[in-house]
């Protein structure tokens, strides 16, 4: 079948001869898209409710803590403690956002559209991981910034007071990053296993909350060594133990760090690194398989 040639059409197809951006830009586009998705931006109003509700709660808590401190002068929680105290919210945030980032793509079958483009398989997973990690870090870091600003403007020690606050804030932000990395890698791995968002959310909550009793049981075993290693039992406790070891009295004022983890600080750090590395490796393997389908 051939149609007459030479027919005049109103606006023809335009070939594209402009620049095609490289891998870094593509990664950046996918990362930004993921970060926006995490907070429901560019999505329906329904998708915005939960992320902004959580963000609202942590900000209000931070504002309250700041207000109490400036009025009464009592430090309710340090920057680092803030992340610990918000861990429940972080778990629920991961349980909602991680499936939103990866399970939805699995379910809708959009992945072939990604992997038929010049996007390396691993880049997809890493961009999503970076987006979730950044979202978590913002969730924990932004309220700390609120606390810092409150403290900085009400300090009575002038510039040195601000400087001291900053020195307290920075480890808090690093600790928030640790929370973000551990929770993002574990949560995203679980979510990437299923296209059903409800299952993924349930799985994430289960892994983070159901492992808590393990720590409880291990910590009352009649062996000091087992007790001191008990916090390897759950990701939440693991992060906390690393915090105890590295931050010391920024996290536990009064310094009873040695009581719970003994001399096993480096073991906890190594365990955290292994956990993250293992989850990322499994995530990359998972997407190597998905892409070929």
């Amino acid at each position: 079948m051939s149609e007459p040639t030479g027919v005049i059409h109103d606006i023809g197809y335009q070939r594209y001869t402009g620049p095609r951006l490289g891998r870094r830009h593509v990664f950046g586009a996918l990362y930004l898209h993921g970060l926006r998705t995490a907070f429901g931006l560019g999505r329906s109003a329904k998708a915005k409710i939960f992320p902004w509700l959580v963000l609202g709660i942590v900000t209000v808590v931070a504002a309250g803590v700041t207000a109490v401190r400036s009025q009464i002068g009592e430090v309710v929680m340090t920057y680092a403690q803030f992340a610990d105290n918000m861990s429940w919210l972080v778990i629920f945030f991961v349980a909602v956002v991680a499936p939103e980032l990866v399970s939805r793509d699995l379910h809708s079958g959009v992945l072939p559209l990604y992997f038929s483009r010049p996007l390396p398989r691993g880049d997809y997973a890493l961009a999503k991981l970076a987006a979730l990690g950044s979202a978590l870090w913002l969730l924990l870091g932004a309220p700390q910034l609120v606390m810092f600003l409150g403290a900085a403007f009400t300090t009575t020690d002038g510039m040195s007071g601000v400087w001291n606050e900053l020195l307290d804030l920075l480890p808090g932000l690093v600790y928030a990053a640790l929370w973000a990395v551990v929770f993002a890698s574990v949560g995203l791995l679980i979510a990437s296993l299923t296209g059903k968002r409800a299952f993924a959310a349930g799985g994430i909550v289960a892994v983070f909350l159901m492992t808590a009793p393990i720590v409880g049981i291990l910590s009352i075993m009649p062996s000091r060594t087992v007790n001191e290693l008990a916090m390897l039992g759950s990701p939440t406790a693991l992060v906390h133990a690393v915090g105890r070891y590295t931050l010391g009295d920024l996290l536990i004022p009064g310094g009873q760090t040695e009581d719970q983890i003994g001399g096993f600080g480096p073991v906890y750090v190594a365990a955290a690194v292994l956990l993250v590395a293992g989850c990322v490796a499994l995530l990359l393997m998972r997407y190597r398989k998905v892409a070929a389908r």
Partner: protein
Amino acid sequence: MLPTLVGVTLIATESLTKTYGGGVTALADLTVAVEPGIVGLVGANGAGKSTLIKILLGLLTPTSGRVRVLGLDPTTDSAAVRARVGYMPEHDALPPDLTAAELVTHLGRISGLPRTVARERASEALRHVGLYEERYRPVGGYSTGMKQRVKLAQALVHDPDLLLLDEPTNGLDPVGRDAMLALVHRIGTEFGISVLVCSHLLGEVERICDTLVAIDGGRLLRADRISAMTSVTDVLAVEVSEGTDELAARLAALQLPVRRDGRLLLVELADDHTYDLILGAVAELDLPLHRLDQRRHRVAELFAAREPSHV
């Protein structure tokens, strides 16, 4: 049948074989070369069409054999191949809560287009496939035909040199099928983009293709240009109420290739002179002529196993 590299070869495979883990052979020793244009890839479900497409995209590694797409090797240079290829998958592939405009723009950026260019080209691509105001509505509310159009638009957004369309008419009603085929034909002829259309319906793709590749059970049945296939298939069907054998003998004596098909005699049509020869033969033998008409063989008959005789 090694590809003679005259002009540009669009897709070339050489002894391409793909065996899956369970010992299932999806492609067996497939050697084929096609030139730019609209290529129809036909075969029954499970013939290996989707496997071939995934190898062309570099998503699957062949067990053995070689493959080249647009002069590039997708097994080693998959990113370069994918930058120049657009792929429309067979199954549902659209997240329901994004609008068509957002989705196609986003995928354009994943193909490496700068932000503003991606947005412009996304609305252009959607316009070319016939989606206008609808593109600002979430895809979840679209009809099957509209979804197929969005899938086609996302394959076009980055201006590829080759489109791989896996069953583009799947799930469409007859009107939708015709519209989709017309669109594919337009892309292949007016846009200057080569197209590989997969289908299990031969009658559908033969209408729009320049070249047909038929595979079955992972093996090549036939690959040729449509013009070559149809030019030899124009035949005259002659029916006389008696003396069919005498006529057949007479026509054979006149050097006309003739064969029996039930009560019919099929004569290959070389030119208008063939008519005169047949009419002359019928008149000389004084046979009652029932009918004499030209048949344009559908390409389907070329692949039919029930035709052992040469055509």
